[in-house]
């Protein structure tokens, strides 16, 4: 295939490669088909007149970079690479329960090595379940992307150019280029990429059916494929919205915007947008501007819609992450609630009704039983909502939803008068007394994911003090399972919110709006120090807000590594949690650290679908700094990242299937991901064994010799029990085989320093990471030399590492 410039035709989703000469016959590319019309064609075999040919869509590609071996890979094309990873990082399965209950043959007891009625065993069942989760996550993102692309094409046209960073970003779609081997230039190109993504998700999902895949490692390979595909889908979504909506384009100086419950102006009508798919929220802002209402109505959001809203409109406000949904609705602040998709509390409509706020539901993924009013006159919908004839409306046209939301908010706000359902102090005490009279039931605590001592707090509340209830606020994930469990029917979550009311109202912070991509220029600047190890690592705080002890731990970890001059990046709910804590000078991390992708910088890339800017940065280091061919060259780029790019993802509060598939996409690229203790409930880890020396050999590409490179990175997917354990592991997971001696010494300094501070001792595996005496940090030389002597350490070579034999430049006979 090499040397021939090729183009990709997708016909019934089967890729066909053909050359430029064929391509020049294309006269028109339509949405659903390419049409070739030839009035008259003279050939050796005769004359053809009025030839009209309809075929699938065509990518008109004039990219001169050689195409790599795996364009648009199928679900088995990268299996060999996956198996290399899975040999080193083997799955640890941790089932919730003993049975499989996926089909009517079951339930099947899989204990003690038993197989189910279909023949599946527990390892395959667990990996199948993990794949299902990843398919759900990838489907959520790609369906989101599909909706966005279709909507934006309708609004801006298919030929609207993809520009995510102007002159600062030449590699506009690193993941898509890497996976698919194409460069999207216009919005219409994104549809073709999504065709591929959707096709792959269908195949992956099919493999989970009863009587399909039966081997756990093959399921795991498919998990990695799902993750990779997810990153393509997310990249498409974010490219589309950055290009069309005027979001910051790879801008390290994206504006600081307001976040927190306390930043919402209660004097104005408030519209709260919840979810991840931003068009309805943007239509609200556009309608306000077009109708002279800008500044008269407060528009705010929760979860990633809020991120994307502030990327478009910096005066909009972020309330907080997913765990703030219930407390915000119950506070009575929102006059209208606009729901789009993903990570929305599915009882939002019920909660909205309690505060007499109409809900406008805007996605076909979440209809909540509401009547479809998409084709109804706006005046009629607004009247019905204002008069509370209906609790809400399903409106699948974002522009119409935007107008309805604004006009309804204006009319509803004076009627509602911020009606809330948070009880007053006297009522909390009264209810707590009733609770105390029930006795020692503990149902609330036994329902709480964090095992919070709610009963003790209720007893103290019954005695007149709400202090212990207020103390629960920081660690409460806002799930309200305590309320569902309470046999007295108490609104315990509301009690906690009341007790912590002062704290809640004081939540006023700054976050840098999502910057989008990392500039090529930034990559050129940091590529060398990252690969050589002189910048000790890239730490990405991503994912949801299911924290064991509140978001403060994420902010602490973020500040620790920014201070140590790691490159810190963030996205999604984690990016918000980082913002919601101030230092002793009253500044949030975003006010302390610059937004550059550089040592000591803190970049918020944006929402969930912005995560490929993080994986893409690693890919761009291989492509831009190291000049490795990127196009459809997945294995080689992943091999480069695994061995050279010291990056680690931290999803401290990961809870969703989307977080699961996002992590899987990082693993296939050789980037480890760590989750907090609740992440153990994903029920599968990918762990290395540092005590198995044979697992940690790579080839020296210069000589073909097999060389011990140490357990770097030690794990691909890992649950840490505590923040302290996580911090030590972050430093360790940034170590890579290719580090120079200077770089390795810097990385080991951080690893040892954190280990000593948090564990009270030097690490016991330091000898595995010291290759030559020059790797030893000068300030710890005596201590480390003593350990090396005890461990009978021997000096070893520093290779040009690869685990792909085909990349060996000089083979031995």
């Amino acid at each position, binding site marked *: 295939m090499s040397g021939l410039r090729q183009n990709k035709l997708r016909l019934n989703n089967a890729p066909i490669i053909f050359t430029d000469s064929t391509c020049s016959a294309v006269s028109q590319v339509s949405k659903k088909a390419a049409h070739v019309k030839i009035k008259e064609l003279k050939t050796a075999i005769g004359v053809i007149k009025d030839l009209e040919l309809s075929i699938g869509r065509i990518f008109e590609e004039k990219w001169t970079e050689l195409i790599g071996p795996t364009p648009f890979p199928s679900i088995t094309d990268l299996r060999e690479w996956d198996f290399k990873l899975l040999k080193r990082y083997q799955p640890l399965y941790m089932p919730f*329960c003993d049975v499989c209950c996926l089909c009517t043959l079951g339930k099947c007891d899989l204990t003690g090595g038993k197989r189910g009625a279909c023949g599946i065993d527990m390892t395959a069942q667990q990996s199948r379940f993990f794949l299902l989760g990843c398919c759900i996550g990838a489907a959520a993102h790609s369906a989101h992307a599909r909706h966005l692309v279709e909507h934006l094409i309708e609004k801006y046209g298919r030929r609207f150019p993809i520009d995510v960073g102007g002159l600062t970003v030449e590699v506009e779609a690193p993941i898509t280029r890497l996976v698919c081997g194409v460069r999207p230039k216009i919005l219409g190109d994104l549809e073709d990429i999504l065709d591929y993504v959707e096709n792959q998700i269908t195949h992956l999902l099919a493999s989970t059916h009863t009587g399909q895949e039966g081997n756990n490692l093959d399921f795991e390979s498919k998990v990695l494929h799902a993750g990779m595909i997810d990153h393509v889908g997310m990249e498409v979504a974010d490219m589309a919205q950055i290009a069309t909506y005027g979001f910051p384009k790879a801008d390290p100086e994206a504006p600081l915007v307001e976040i927190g419950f306390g930043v919402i102006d209660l004097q104005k009508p408030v519209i709260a947008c919840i979810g991840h798919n931003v068009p309805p929220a943007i239509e609200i802002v556009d309608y306000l501007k077009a109708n002279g209402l800008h500044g008269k109505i407060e528009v705010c959001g929760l979860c990633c819609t809020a991120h994307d809203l502030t990327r478009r409109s910096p005066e909009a406000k972020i309330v907080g992450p997913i765990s703030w949904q219930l407390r915000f609705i119950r506070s009575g602040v929102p006059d209208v609630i606009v729901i789009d998709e993903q990570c929305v509390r599915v009882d939002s409509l019920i909660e909205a009704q309690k505060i007499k706020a109409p809900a406008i539901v805007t996605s076909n993924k979440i209809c909540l039983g509401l009547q479809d009013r998409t084709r109804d006159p706006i005046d009629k919908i607004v009247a019905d909502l204002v008069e509370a004839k209906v609790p809400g409306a399903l409106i699948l046209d974002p522009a119409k939803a935007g107008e309805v939301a604004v006009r309804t908010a204006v009319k509803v706000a004076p009627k509602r008068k911020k009606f809330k359902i948070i009880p007053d102090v006297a009522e909390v005490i009264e209810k707590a007394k009733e609770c105390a009279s029930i006795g020692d039931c503990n149902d609330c605590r036994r329902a709480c994911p964090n095992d919070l001592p709610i009963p003790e707090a209720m007893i103290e509340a019954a005695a007149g003090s709400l202090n212990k209830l207020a103390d629960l606020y920081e660690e409460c994930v806002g799930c309200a399972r305590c309320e569902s469990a309470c046999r007295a029917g108490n609104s315990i979550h509301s009690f906690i919110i009341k007790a912590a009311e002062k704290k809640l109202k004081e939540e006023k912070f700054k976050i840098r709006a999502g910057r989008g991509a990392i500039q090529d220029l930034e990559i050129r600047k940091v590529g060398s120090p990252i690969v050589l190890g002189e910048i000790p690592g890239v730490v990405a705080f991503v994912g949801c807000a299911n924290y064991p002890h509140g978001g403060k731990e994420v902010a602490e970890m973020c500040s620790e590594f920014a201070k140590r001059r790691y490159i810190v990046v963030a996205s999604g709910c984690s990016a918000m949690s980082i913002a919601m804590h101030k230092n002793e000078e009253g500044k949030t991390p975003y006010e302390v650290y610059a937004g550059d992708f550089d040592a000591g910088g803190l970049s918020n890339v944006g929402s969930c679908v912005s995560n490929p800017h993080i994986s893409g940065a690693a890919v761009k280091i291989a492509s831009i700094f190291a000049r490795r061919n990127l196009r459809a060259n997945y294995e080689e780029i992943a091999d480069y990242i695994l061995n050279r790019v010291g990056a680690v993802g931290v999803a401290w509060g990961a809870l969703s299937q989307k977080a699961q598939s996002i992590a899987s996409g990082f693993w296939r690229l050789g980037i480890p991901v760590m989750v907090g203790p609740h992440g153990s409930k994903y029920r599968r880890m990918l762990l290395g064994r540092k005590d198995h020396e044979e697992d940690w050999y790579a080839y020296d590409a210069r000589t073909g010799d097999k060389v011990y490179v140490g357990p770097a990175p030690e794990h691909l997917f890992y649950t840490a029990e505590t923040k302290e354990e996580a911090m030590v592991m972050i430093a360790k997971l940034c170590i890579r085989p290719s580090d120079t001696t200077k770089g390795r010494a810097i990385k080991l300094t951080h690893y040892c320093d954190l280990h000593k501070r948090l564990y009270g001792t030097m690490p016991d595996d330091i000898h595995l990471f010291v290759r030559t005496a020059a790797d030893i940090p000068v300030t710890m030389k005596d201590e480390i030399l003593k350990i090396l002597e005890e461990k009978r350490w021997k000096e070893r070579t520093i290779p040009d590492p690869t685990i792909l034999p085909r990349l060996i430049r000089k083979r031995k006979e």
Partner: protein
Amino acid sequence: MSAEPWQRAEIPGPKKALVFAKPEVVVTMVKTAKRPLLIVGHEAVNNGLNEEKVIDYMIRMAKTAKIPVVATAHIFGEFVKRGFQPATWMSVMDITNRLQDPEWKGLDGMGQYDLALFIGIPYYMEWVILSSLKHISPDLKTISLGRFYQPHATCSFSNLSLKYWIECLKVIINGLEAK
């Protein structure tokens, strides 16, 4: 309290832990084990009654029964502060992984363990860890010394009051001290 999972939504399946009728059973199990291992998580530092924390009881137990201790998370230093040197620190994921490997030589190079006792690990984490061991390491016996019922263990306490739980730990230590 009854032998039902502490977190009510946790449903284990057909194979459930035996509940200790009395704490002395732990003593017997430890004494008859050829190679026991004690795994202590970070909550052992926070939980306890009055001044004495669970970690203090575990130190006494380890010293008395000469059981090697794996300190998980970051609490290795807490042991050292109390003048006790655990056999090693290792993350709970890593020790779980190694306990599933029949070829693992153990912390002392003498081979795999036949009894693992867990305490101080968050309930939901211990839940999946014990399940993992139940399914993948059927020859390993596991004991949950925690306050709440862990059905994926081989044996576990039922859900206990804090006071009674501490009493049980004392009974176990006293039992192990007796010849």
